[in-house]
């Protein structure tokens, strides 16, 4: 069913939690109501099927349910620096004028600032989407003195709290970052140093692959329940890296198990760690996976095996289809034939947008109420 912004209805009650996950097939964005009309946004993507108005989905969604972005969005978190997590982020930061910005400590180092500036030099700038977005974010935040200072995320750090005395919820709400680890921080900066262009070197775009392991895993504690946002975290055989390091941080913080899990790295096998399911999540939690379709057929995420594996452990929702929106209309047959004759195979990267929305009250016996929109669906076992 095509996604219609008018279908999303009204916003949550002031004392109701909401976690809405968008995933158009390439990209993801999570919008969270922490009570009392305050919102936080994690990552950003745009509605690629909308060529007329390709705004960030968070902006479109929040406006459609009557949220005043300029004052009600308290925090914007960039989990990591990948194209599928930062599209539209700069606009979102510009629009949400009172929001605090937060990202990995590694992205707030002078070396990274220099890298971003260097990729944007001269008339032949080689900045791709992620460089452009981040450069704009950094410039906007630096120039805005009224905005709260940027918060850096590392393992075991409290990023924000909404005390029950000031909010509409009967509990304290706490947002913690559980990564990146010290080792990952160090490796990220080493990588940036090795990719830093030097005099005489031909310009080229920033490498596509930067480590998912440097992404920020978030834990949002609502007293009686919790939400775990896995970003693109993956496993690694070095105990100082990946999910093993995150598990150590969670142990230090003595975190309660989460009843809702934004599954890491699009549900891939490399994002799976048994201990996460055993120690950080309740039994059969609600799980949301955002697809990643920018891979060859058969490798698109989540694969059928991924869906089976996660379904065995929890109630699974997928925000979109792995399939694209289909044939592009209006393309000249001569163009189609010409590409075909030259052996050039093209496929549309746009996929239909979907939204999984979870709402619940903070009460001992409450449970998540799920709604799906557009291409999102619940996986029936």
């Amino acid at each position, binding site marked *: 069913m095509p996604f219609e912004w008018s279908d999303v209805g009204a916003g949550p009650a002031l004392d109701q939690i909401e976690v809405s996950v968008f995933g158009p097939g390439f990209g993801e964005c999570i919008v969270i109501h922490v009570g009392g009309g305050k919102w936080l946004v994690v990552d950003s993507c745009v509605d690629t099927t909308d060529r007329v108005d390709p705004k960030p989905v968070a902006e479109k969604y929040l406006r459609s349910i009557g949220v005043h972005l300029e004052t009600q969005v308290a925090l914007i978190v960039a989990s990591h620096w990948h194209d599928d997590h930062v599209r539209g982020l700069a606009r979102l930061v510009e629009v949400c004028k009172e929001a605090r910005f937060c990202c990995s400590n590694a992205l707030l180092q002078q070396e990274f600032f*220099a890298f971003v500036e260097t990729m944007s*030099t001269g008339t032949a700038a080689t900045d791709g989407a992620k460089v452009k977005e981040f450069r704009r974010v950094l410039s906007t*935040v630096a120039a805005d003195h009224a905005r709260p200072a940027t918060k*850096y995320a590392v393992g075991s750090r409290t990023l924000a709290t909404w005390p029950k005395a000031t909010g509409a919820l009967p509990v304290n709400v706490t947002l913690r970052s559980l990564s990146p680890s010290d080792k990952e921080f160090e490796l990220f900066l080493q990588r940036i140093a090795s990719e830093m262009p030097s*005099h005489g070197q031909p*310009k080229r775009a920033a490498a596509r692959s930067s480590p998912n392991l440097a992404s920020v895993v978030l834990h949002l504690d609502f007293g009686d329940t919790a939400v775990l946002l896995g970003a693109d975290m993956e496993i690694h055989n070095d105990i100082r890296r990946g999910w093993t390091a995150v598990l150590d941080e969670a142990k230090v913080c003595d975190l309660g198990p989460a009843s809702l899990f934004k599954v890491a790295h699009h549900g891939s096998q490399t994002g799976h760690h048994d201990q996460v399911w055993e120690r950080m999540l309740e039994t059969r939690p609600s799980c949301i996976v955002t697809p990643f379709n920018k891979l060859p057929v058969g490798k698109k995420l989540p694969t059928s095996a991924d869906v089976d594996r996660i379904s065995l452990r929890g109630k699974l929702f997928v925000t979109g289809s792995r399939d694209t929106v289909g044939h592009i209309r209006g393309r000249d047959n001569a163009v189609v*034939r010409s590409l075909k004759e030259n*052996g*050039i195979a093209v496929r549309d990267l746009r996929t239909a947008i979907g939204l999984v929305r979870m709402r619940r009250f903070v009460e001992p016996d409450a449970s998540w109420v799920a709604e799906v929109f557009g291409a999102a669906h619940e996986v029936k076992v």
Partner: protein
Amino acid sequence: MATPAKLEFKPEVTSVEPDEHSLMWKDTFAQGGLYQIGAHAHSQSIKEQVTPLTVGREGLPRSATVNRPFAAPVIEPGKLTAPAQGFYGPARSQVIAEWHGQVQAIHDEFFVAELRGTLGGGVAGSHEEAQIPMDEVREEDVELVREGAFFRLCVNLEVVNGTKRRVTDLVFRRMPAYRRDELEEAVAKASTLFHAFRVE
């Protein structure tokens, strides 16, 4: 036979029959980068392309006619070729589709690229992924095919001697090198930004 002399393109002689060794190189600067546009199978340097055209005035092809445009080179079916443009160009050539691409991954026989459609019905605004055979990359451009490399892909519709044909054009961008001054400027800008940034 008369001494060979350079062919001069005067109004009275504007066309000869196609010559496989003629044509075509065109270097153009775009967005600060150097594009090399050339026929896939016939690319020569600009000097090389002119030299083979040195024919004696008496040696002009008999079929050369007045007021007819120079014909394009022989197009190898199934190969990417350049549009017959430049000063030897055909009467009409129209770009009917254009994408800007960036190489994402390289395999033995093909490379994968992300395409952003910039021109043409059903193309402009599109976001696609393409698998392009390495065979279609000009020999001179092979070294440019690296992750992160930029290129332009066009489909041209040409009308040559009243005959329409489609020509697909793959052009890798030769990026300029980083200059010391611009690197220093970037680092200075970054330093200013960093120190203006409030973090807690």
